[in-house]
């Protein structure tokens, strides 16, 4: 199926749904003798397959109570202890249940706020690990990467077989260098 066909099918579905809703509205209005321009409550008599979808609260309101089945009625709530209403009238407040624990989203939000508010990690005082300065070393490294990259592109274009043979070698040596890099500084060397 091409994307154009998919788009046409989607359009057809949308159009048929629109036409169907308009027809339902007109039919309901004709039955109720009302103006078809006004919104009409959803018809309940039709099969659910041909009924416009309703909002979630409406569906929840018409649902039977939790625990209901045809042979088992839900337990009625326990009556309040004697003297309860008297104490309520005097101003006593019943103990409230504890607040629910924070959900996952709230915990993540709290953690991220604390992390964002924390100051960024500072480098230790003292001489820089590189005498030339980090910025210049970074630029030198970038130029070194470019110096490696230009011949790599040339090889990839002119001799793909050689490139395929060199790439695992370069990856292995790069990984070895990355593993062997030391965390030392000038003081350690001196």
């Amino acid at each position: 199926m091409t994307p154009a066909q998919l788009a046409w099918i989607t359009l057809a579905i949308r159009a048929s749904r629109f036409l169907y809703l308009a027809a339902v509205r007109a039919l309901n209005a004709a039955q109720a003798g009302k103006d078809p321009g006004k919104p009409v409550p959803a018809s309940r008599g039709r099969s659910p397959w041909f009924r416009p979808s309703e909002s979630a609260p409406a569906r929840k309101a018409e649902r039977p109570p939790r625990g209901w089945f045809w042979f088992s009625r839900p337990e009625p709530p326990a009556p309040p202890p004697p003297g309860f209403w008297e104490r309520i009238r005097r101003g006593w407040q019943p103990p409230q249940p504890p607040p629910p624990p924070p959900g996952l989203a709230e915990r993540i939000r709290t953690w991220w706020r604390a992390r964002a508010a924390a100051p960024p990690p500072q480098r230790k005082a003292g001489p820089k690990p590189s005498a030339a300065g980090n910025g210049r070393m970074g630029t030198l490294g970038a130029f070194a990467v470019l110096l490696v990259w230009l011949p790599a592109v040339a090889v990839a274009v002119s001799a793909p077989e050689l490139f395929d043979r060199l790439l695992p070698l370069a990856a292995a040596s790069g990984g070895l260098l990355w593993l062997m890099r030391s965390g030392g500084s000038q003081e350690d060397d001196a």
Partner: protein
Amino acid sequence: MSGFLPWPWRRRREEGLKGGPRLALLRLLARLFDYALFGLLLMLASMQSGRWAFTGVWLPVKLALLAAPWMALWTALLGATPGKMLLRLRVRSLEPGRVGLAAAMRREGRCLLSGVALGTPLAVFTAAMAGLACTFHLGPVWDRRARTRVVLLPAAAGWPPVLHWLGAAIRLAVLAAVFRLFTLGLDPRPDALRAALETAAARAAALQAGWAALLP
């Protein structure tokens, strides 16, 4: 509509979009366009040299590895890669100053490390993570490490909408042409790509001749 927006919102809009699903999709599209364009350039170079090796499962990996310094170079020199420029995106530094070559290289390297260099099936997860991070205004990991941010520049004000639509159509045509030529070049033999390029050249020549005939 922007005339009704109160002060901070309006100002924030004028500075440019810094997050959201739209920016995430545009960034993904720009990156795909960059890879396709770089692959197309490699294909054109190899058509000149007569060697053709743009097939196989390792092609995305090789393309990502080779395209990283290329994209870093564009970012450092012009502030955006070709795909980002086409979609009006810019790479900005969080600190005052421009994004240097080292920062751009570190950014692209981090992008490779985050999974782009592992091939298409695993890069999908990286793209999903980056898209989610960008949607929630966090930015992908390579942006956070390099202290950069990608913004979507607002459209130039004061132009008639027709010109905006025309520009959008031209951008879309460029995107589609590059993607189409790149997919043609993924064929084991470069014949389809060569034929498409010859057709495009013939069309351009005809267009040029037509314009020349229209001129007095």
